[in-house]
Each structure stands twice: as structure tokens, then as C-alpha cells.
């Protein structure tokens, strides 16, 4: 009996091993096919690299997705850190840059100065601003290219365009890096926090004029003859939350503008927390307001926060953000079923961006092969992807900036508050094709790094399966041109 039992135990034990093995092999066969993994990598990053391919081989695609959804758990790449250490202006508090700028401008108003002295001061102002702008751009590019937190950077691209500011307006350029960092902090966080961070940020206060928005009957309004400015209130609803068809009226625009009176800028860093924001009570409209059918009791700065809560919880916002995410990640004409699913998740989680993205990435729609390679890269996505997939080291960042300008998508320079679009309709045209193929040729020939030759082998694996036409043309073309052709191929222009 005892013998029998122990035999039975052995059998049990062996079958357990077998069973475990089966699970192991089931898991392996359940692993997504290569094309699906590639699709995920292409949409969650700015271009597939050999390091990413190896990482996914090692930990599996699901673990990769989860790590990307929690960027705080991914350590930043040493390349990024080394680069960032070199950019001095981004390590200064932006309020300090702003103060330097204001001090120089004050000096310039001194009528005693000679023309030569004035010229010198003007040069200094230009230098200060240009350095802040260029270093913010380079820091941005380095992260997009080399960060291991790729999804976070993809979301920075998405949200920066959603909450667009134009570097050319006022002193926005001094605040660019800080503004983008605030967006980065909340890129996968809570939508309300993100929205509030932009509402209070000097870049936005300058760009959409809210820093001047004042109740005409307030003490400051009367003293300085200032009044309401609807610019921010309108775009806050039209572009940041409800969408143009979100059901608000002109009265809501005015009410919201009144609610945000006094949300201004402290350019001298004397008040508040040196973040550049200050709530000016003496500019605020102290009356009650009706906003989107709700009574907002006079409550100072809290009214703005209450309005933001109302906007964040509004179903139109859930739909608008979901539509834009689905368009960015899935298709120019996103499937309604997905938009609905995401809207529901957005509403239920009160705007938890990470969970909405998690739902998106695991949806049938996102994973349907009909959407593979259907998103035409924006000029920005295209150029960054060539640098990543070509694994180009130490690229000439200034030249990359120039390329983006040439392709009509200069970094931080979208004039309209809509931000840059990400659809094929917006970016595919004859001139763009000539420019893209020309840039691909130039990059393949080393224009971004003279001493770095692009390895054909590397290209082949990073660019994935090429179409038979591309393969044929590449095969019969001179060896010297092959990298250029792969970089300028249709496969490299879609993600």
C-alpha cells in the first residue's frame, strides 16, 4: 500500500512536471506572431531597434508593454542622461531665464544707451532665448531617439500637440523645456493633473493669452482698464477637452473666461512658488457663474479647478480624447467600437491615461492585422524612426532640426493651437515624397554622422519584412544605394 502510494506520488509528480512543461509550451505558442509584435513595437515607439527586439525576445511582448506603461520603473538610458547633462539652460529654473530676459529688456529701455550698447543687449536677449529654445529641442530629440521609455516619449508627442504652444510667441521659448517636462510627468498619468498643469503653466498662459484675462470690474481691471480675454477659455473646450462639437455655447465660453480671470503669470518669481504661475485675486471676477448648466459659486481660484473637474468628467471629453488616441495609435479613421471602449474606460477611471492606453493596446481593434502599417508617419516620426532604425550614433541634432523645418514640421513651431496633425491626408503629397526620399538618401550617406556607416544587416532586421517590390528594387540596385532605398521605402514611411 505504502509502495503503491509512493508510486502514485511519483506518477503525480512526473505528470505535474509534464503539465508544467505543457503550460510552458502553450505559452510559447500563444506568444504573438512576429508581425503582431512588430506592430506593437512600431506603434509604442518611434522605430524598432535591435535592443528592443532582443528585449522582447527575452521578457516577452506583454512584459514589454507593461514596462512601457510604467515608465517610472524603466531606468533612463545612459545616452540620454549624458546628453542632457550637457545642455546648460535646461538645468536652470525657467523663472531665472525669464528674469534674466526681463532684466535685459529693462536695460534696453534705458534711453542713455548708445546704439552700439543697445545692439549688444539685443544680441544677448536673442542668445538667451535661442539657447533655451535650441537646447529644449535637442533634449527633446535625444529623448525621442534614445530613451528606453519610448511610449512615454510617444505620449509626449501626442500631448504636446494636444496642448500645443508656439515657441515664437512672447517668451514661450524660455519655458518650453519646463512645459514639456510637466507634460512628460503626466503623460501616462491622470488627465486632470495634466490639464491643470498646462492651465497653470506660463507657456500656455502666454500662448493663449490667459495671463491677461481680467475681470473689468476688478480692482486691477478698473485701474489698468483691463478686461476679459476669451482665447484660452474657447480653446480649452474646443481643443483640450470637449471638442468642437462638445455642446458648449458662447455663453459657456464667456463664463469660463470669467472663471479663469486672475490665472496669471508671475514673471519675476517674487510671488508664489517660482513655477511662474500666480493667481491674482484682484483681477478675478467675484460673481457666481453658470457654466455648462451648472452654477459655479464665487470661490476664487477654486472655480477654475471646479470647471476643470466638470470638463474632465464630461462625456464629450472622454470621447474627444479617446478619438484622438485611437486616431494616433490605430487608424486615421478609427473604428467607432474602439473609440466607445476607450471613452468608457476614460469615464470609469476618471481619465486614467495609463489604463485607457492599456485597454487600447489590448483591444481587438488595435491588434487587428488590417491596421498594421497603415499609419503614415508624420515628418517628425519619419525622421526620428530613420535615426532609431538605422541606429545612428551621435547624430547631428542641428541637422535633424533643419530637416524637420524643411519638412514643414519644425519642432515647437506649430502656429495654430490645434498642434500638428498625424494623418496621412495632412502629410502625404508630392513635395513631401521628394523630400523624404532625398533625406533618406542623405541620411544613408552619412549626413547625420559622417563616420558612421549604416549596416545593411541592421537595417534588414530593424525595418522588418519588406514587400517583394521593395526587395526586388533593392536587390537590383547598386550596393551603395541599398540603404537609401530601404530608408526611403514605403515600409519605412508607415508604422
Amino acid at each position, binding site marked *: 500500500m505504502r509502495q503503491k502510494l509512493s508510486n502514485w506520488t511519483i506518477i503525480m509528480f512526473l505528470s505535474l512536471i509534464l503539465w508544467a512543461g505543457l503550460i510552458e509550451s502553450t505559452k510559447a505558442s500563444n506568444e504573438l506572431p512576429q508581425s503582431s509584435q512588430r506592430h506593437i513595437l512600431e506603434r509604442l515607439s518611434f522605430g524598432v531597434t535591435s535592443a528592443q527586439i532582443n528585449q522582447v525576445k527575452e521578457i516577452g511582448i506583454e512584459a514589454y508593454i507593461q514596462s512601457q506603461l510604467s515608465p517610472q520603473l524603466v531606468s533612463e538610458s545612459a545616452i540620454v542622461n549624458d546628453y542632457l547633462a550637457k545642455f546648460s539652460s535646461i538645468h536652470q529654473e525657467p523663472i531665472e531665464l525669464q528674469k534674466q530676459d526681463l532684466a535685459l529688456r529693462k536695460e534696453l529701455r534705458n534711453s542713455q544707451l548708445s546704439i552700439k550698447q543697445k545692439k549688444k543687449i539685443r544680441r544677448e536677449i536673442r542668445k538667451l532665448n535661442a539657447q533655451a529654445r535650441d537646447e529644449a529641442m535637442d533634449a527633446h530629440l535625444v529623448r525621442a531617439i534614445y530613451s528606453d521609455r519610448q511610449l512615454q516619449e510617444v505620449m509626449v508627442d501626442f500631448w504636446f500637440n494636444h496642448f500645443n504652444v508656439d515657441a515664437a510667441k512672447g517668451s514661450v521659448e524660455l519655458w518650453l523645456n519646463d512645459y514639456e517636462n510637466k507634460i512628460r510627468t503626466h503623460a501616462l498619468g491622470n488627465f486632470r493633473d495634466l490639464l491643470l498643469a498646462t492651465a497653470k503653466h506660463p507657456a500656455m498662459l502666454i500662448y493663449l*493669452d490667459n495671463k*491677461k*484675462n*481680467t475681470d*473689468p470690474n476688478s480692482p486691477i*481691471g478698473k485701474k489698468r*482698464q*483691463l*478686461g*476679459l*480675454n*476669451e*482665447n484660452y477659455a*474657447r480653446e480649452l473646450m*474646443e481643443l483640450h477637452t470637449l471638442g*468642437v462639437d462638445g455642446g458648449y455655447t*458662447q455663453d459657456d*465660453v464667456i463664463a469660463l473666461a470669467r472663471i479663469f480671470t486672475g490665472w496669471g503669470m508671475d514673471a519675476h518669481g517674487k510671488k508664489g512658488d517660482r513655477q511662474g504661475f500666480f493667481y491674482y485675486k484682484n483681477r478675478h471676477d467675484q460673481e457666481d457663474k453658470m457654466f455648462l448648466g451648472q452654477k459655479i459659486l464665487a470661490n476664487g481660484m477654486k472655480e477654475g479647478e471646479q470647471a476643470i473637474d466638470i470638463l474632465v468628467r464630461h462625456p464629450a471629453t472622454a470621447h474627444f480624447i479617446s478619438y484622438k488616441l485611437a486616431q494616433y495609435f490605430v487608424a486615421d479613421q478609427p473604428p467607432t467600437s474602439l473609440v466607445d471602449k476607450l471613452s468608457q474606460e476614460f469615464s470609469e477611471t476618471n481619465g486614467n491615461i495609463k489604463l485607457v492606453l492599456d485597454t487600447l493596446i489590448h483591444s481587438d481593434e488595435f491588434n487587428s492585422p488590417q491596421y498594421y502599417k497603415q499609419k503614415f508617419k508624420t*515628418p517628425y516620426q519619419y525622421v526620428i524612426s530613420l535615426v532609431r532604425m538605422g541606429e545612428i550614433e551621435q547624430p547631428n541634432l542641428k541637422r535633424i532640426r533643419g530637416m524637420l523645418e*524643411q*519638412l*514643414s514640421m519644425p519642432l515647437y513651431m506649430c*502656429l*495654430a493651437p*490645434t498642434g500638428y496633425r498625424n494623418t*496621412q491626408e*495632412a*502629410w*502625404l*503629397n*508630392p*513635395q*513631401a*515624397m*521628394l*523630400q523624404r*526620399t*532625398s533625406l533618406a*538618401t*542623405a541620411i544613408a*550617406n552619412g549626413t547625420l554622422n559622417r563616420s558612421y556607416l549604416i549596416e545593411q544587416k541592421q537595417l534588414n532586421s530593424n525595418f522588418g519584412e519588406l514587400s517583394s*517590390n*521593395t526587395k526586388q*528594387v533593392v536587390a537590383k*540596385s*547598386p550596393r551603395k*544605394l541599398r540603404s*537609401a*532605398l530601404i530608408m*526611403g*521605402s*514605403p515600409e519605412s*514611411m508607415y508604422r
Partner: protein
Amino acid sequence: MKRRKFFTTASLATAGMLLPVGCNSWVAQRVNSASDRQRLVVVFLRGAVDGLNVVVPHQEAEYYESRPTIAVPYPQEQDGAIDLDGFFGLHPKLQDLMPLWNKKNLAFVHASGSPVPERSHFQAQDYIENGTPGVKNTPDGWMNRLLAELPPDRPTQALNVGVITPYILKGEMAIASLKPGINSAAPIPTDRPRVNKAFSSLYSGTDALSKAYQDGKKAREIVLADLNQEMILASRGAKSVNTFVDDAAEVAKLMVGNAKTQLAFMEIGGWDSHIDQNPAFDRLLPSLGEGLATLAQGLEAIFSDTVIVVISEFGRTVKENGNKGTDHGYGNAIWLLGGGIRGGNVYGDWQGLDQSVLYEGRDLPVTTDFRAIISPILQQHLAISNASLNRIFPDYQFTNKLYFLA
């Protein structure tokens, strides 16, 4: 000789096209008989220009009451409006246009715009450009549809400068585009025969990318053939730092030089004056005025056959806002220039600025649909049939009420 070669190339490659000029300008070409000399230039002021400070109702007390700090002063006062007809005046920074007004080559239609009120810049621009106000998803722009309706030999290709094609030009008619500016003819890698050959075979299909690539090559050939020397350097070499003025000179040059060039589109941004409007206008208006005067002067030889329309997405609030600016409003003034215009008049149904007549109590109402201004130009000036007009502005019943064409 060179110029002739350029045009031959153009017409060999295509039956007609939209040609690029400068940063934000497009002209359309088509093959046609010599009798079709009529030209149309549309200038879009993006951002919603404040029409009440362009064509100033200086006899309206409400105008001055509503704008205590930004109103344009009475004609007799310092920096005052230039009187036009005893009631309206022109912003003084547009003085370059006064010779045209005096020659009766300039008119305005006040209180005009889209019949569908819309205070979103982007939505409102879309409505003016797609020509179907209220209908959002119209796939094409009305100038592209117009290109398709121009008789008798339909143009088959269009070309623009600037990498982003404006909605007004989007549509079935092919658009080829070129990079603006002085470097249009600078060598690019795909000019090299071997590179060209390789990419041409990569993009030899019928897919969207291939089609775009092939159109781009055609456009490129035209540029390399002639545009560099004749068209670009000539005017780009001028000392003007103002791109709009330069662009206007180029548009004129192309339109005068070639009977096939009939349509042009130009755009200027920067009019969204929520704060400190007057300094912004003092900066922007002179170049606009000078540019339009340059265009008119350049087109002198064919000015009798030219209509220039200046339009914006909507007007701005009658009252100034709290920051010496104006917010999004509704009605605006549309500008009309040309030898065939019965100029020297401000047209439109002006109902005053009393709050009771204002749209939502705050904005100039729209009493003239912008299509009522474009339509007679298409019909009488470009000889577009009723059927064609219905395709260009579908679901729109046009009845002429203005008679601003001679």
C-alpha cells in the same frame, strides 16, 4: 525663349496645373484658348482679421463707444481712417490701396461671411474653404472643384508650394507641390540619375505614395527646367524682406506671363488679435496693403480681367476685449480688387451696430453669404455655367443682389 520652354514643359507634363509661388501661394494653370484671359486670386487672412478696423464705420457712434482704446480715429484726426464714402473709412496703414480705390478698382462687401455662425477658427476656415458651410466632411475645397469645372480642356494636375496643401485646393484635381523659396532649384539627392532611377522604380506603382512621388518628379522637372532663373531669382533677389510682397510679385509675373495661369491662392496668418491689436495691425497691414498693390501693379496688363478676393474666416467682436484686442466674432468685410470690379463702393446690407441688430448681441451679423460674392465672379467673370456652379457650391441657391461686377 527660356520662359517658352518652361511653359511647354508644363503643358507637356500636364493639361493644366496649380503652380506654386513663394511660401504660401498657389496658382492654377490650365490649357485653354487665348480668349480665356480671366484670372482669380484668392487671398486668405488666417486667424480672423478685424474687419471693423479695416473698413471702419466712422459714422457709427456705437463703433467708438465699443472700442474706447482700439478704434481707428475719425478721418480728420491724427492717424485717423482714410475716408472712403463719407460713412466708412480705410485703416490708415492700408494707404497703399487708396490709388486702387480712387481708380474704382477696389470695393468691399461689409457684414459678410459664412451663413453658419462658427467661432472656432478651424471649423470656420474649413467652411469657407470647402464651400459647404455647415457640412464638415466635404472631401474637397471649392477652388479645386472650380479647377475641375474650368472649360474646355480640363486641367489634370495641380501644383502648390508649401508642404501642406490648403483645404481650399484639396480634391480630385491632382496637386503637385514644391518647396517654396529661393532654394527651389538647389540640387537634391534624387536629382542624381542613379538615385532617381532607383526611387522611380521603387515608386512605379499606382498606390498613393507612388502617385505622389511621380507627381513630385514632374513638378521637379519643371522647376529645374526654368523656374529657378526666371521665376524665382528675379523677384526673390529683390531686397524686400516681406515675403507676402515678394510672393505677390511672383504670382503677378506668372499670371501675366502665361495665359494658362488662371487661379491663384495665397494666405497670410497672424490676425488672431486677442491682445494689443493696434500694434499688431500697424505691423501687419502695411505689408498686406503693399503686397496687394504690388499684385495689382504686376497684373496691370491684364488687370481688367482680374479679380482678387481677400477673405477671412470670421470677424471679431464689436466691443474690444479687456486686453486692447478683440475676441472671435462673426460678420466681416470681404475685399474685392480688379479692373472688372465696380469699385469705389462699400457693398452689403449694413444694419448698424446697435446691440439689437448684432448677432448674439455682440457681433456684426452676416447679411451677405460669402458664396453670394464668389458666385457672380465664377459665373460672370470665369464663365462658369449654372450646372458647374451647383457642383462648386452644392446645395446653394444663388441669386445675385450685389452687382459689383462691371
